[in-house]
């Protein structure tokens, strides 16, 4: 490491970077330019800042998935950082209250990918009139729902979400990328429920891509038997509302 004496007050790296990006005001820019003319130490820093850097593409969730598959997450701070980002995303999306987490999911069966039976759970989060409730069990037409998935870290989960009412199956969320497992990982997107009877919200999870077309051809019983489901009922059927 070489140490250089600045002729005066060294130009900070922040100022140098803003100078080269053209973000400084006229007088400030002129002052920086004058200092650079007189100070080899700061000029050397600017020369370094002007060296071209090729940025790696900003990873998106699929890249994260591939990193996990390569076993990188957990070994590098990127993994930690990205996991933190996902956790923050969950917070940012849901703004969960401080209430206790409710294990709202009934595990219908084990999913694939080597995840053991009890290791894959789902929990529903309901937003009603701006109030977010974790583990709610009744729905009204205006409610918005999100699904949180808990599965073993360092696993990758391909998934689809099905809502089953009697024999009728619908898929409320848009097809999306696989998720990196963890605790209460939010599935992308949200949905509403409109029904007059109990419905099952089922996560079909697998180590390989889930084929919605194939799921669509399955009868409800087969689908739920291979999925992780939780039940919710219309608000009017909430026992608290029954006569």
């Amino acid at each position, binding site marked *: 490491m070489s140490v250089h004496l600045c002729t005066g007050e060294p130009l900070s790296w922040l100022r140098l970077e803003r100078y080269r990006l053209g973000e400084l005001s006229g007088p400030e820019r002129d002052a920086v330019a004058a200092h650079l003319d007189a100070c080899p130490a700061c000029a050397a820093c600017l020369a370094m800042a002007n060296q071209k850097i090729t*940025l790696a593409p*900003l990873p998106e969730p699929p890249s994260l998935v591939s990193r996990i598959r390569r076993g990188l997450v957990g070994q590098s701070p990127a993994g930690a950082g990205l996991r933190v980002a996902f956790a923050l995303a969950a917070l940012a999306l849901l703004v969960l209250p401080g209430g206790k987490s409710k294990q709202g999911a009934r595990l219908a069966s084990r999913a694939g990918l080597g995840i053991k039976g009890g290791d894959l759970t789902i929990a529903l989060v309901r937003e009603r009139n701006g109030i977010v409730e974790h583990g709610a069990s009744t729905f009204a037409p205006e409610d918005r729902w999100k699904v949180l998935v808990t599965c073993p870290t360092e696993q990758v989960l391909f998934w689809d979400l099905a809502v089953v009412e009697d024999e009728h199956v619908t898929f409320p969320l848009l097809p999306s990328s696989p998720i990196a497992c963890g605790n209460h990982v939010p599935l992308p997107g949200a949905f509403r429920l409109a029904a007059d009877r109990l419905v099952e919200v089922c996560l079909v999870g697998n180590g390989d891509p889930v084929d919605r077309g194939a799921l669509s051809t399955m009868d409800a019983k087969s689908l739920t038997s291979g999925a992780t489901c939780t039940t919710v009922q219309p608000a009017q059927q909430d026992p608290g509302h029954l006569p």
Partner: protein
Amino acid sequence: MATHAFPLEPRAEDANNRSMDAYLRYGPALLRKACRMVGNSADAEDVVQAVFIELVQRGRREADLPYLFRAVTTRCLNLLRDAGNRRRLLERQEPALRGPVRTRCDDEVIVIDLMVKLVDCLDRDAAEVLVYRYFDDLTQDEIASLQGVSRKTVGARLARVRQAVASLGGGMSGEVS
């Protein structure tokens, strides 16, 4: 029964695009900054990308360089505070990434090894000041602006930093040119 899918963040795509623009514009500067702090390009890249991913996930649409500069500082400090990362970071140091180190006549040169020790005995705010002053060469006015505090507060934090440096045996003079 009818179920409906709808986007939770209607403007997420817009936020994503703006974050990508910011990444392309400020990414190199932030990468250099992170390199100075953690001493290797792989970890620095991870830190910078994590900052932008968080930006996207939070749907934040505007982020200027000073804001991002501080975000990267915080993340790097978190990294350095984690004992599990330290050995790896110290082993992977690439001294050239520190860049030319400039000094004022009364300043020490703080090397990464020393910074790792210092972050243990400094509070979060003082540790930030340590980085801004000794790694990023910010003036006290710039630090005050970045941290949103008075210059006097920065002076007090800087005094704590110098005291900690002195108690740990000082910095490193390096090869003066």
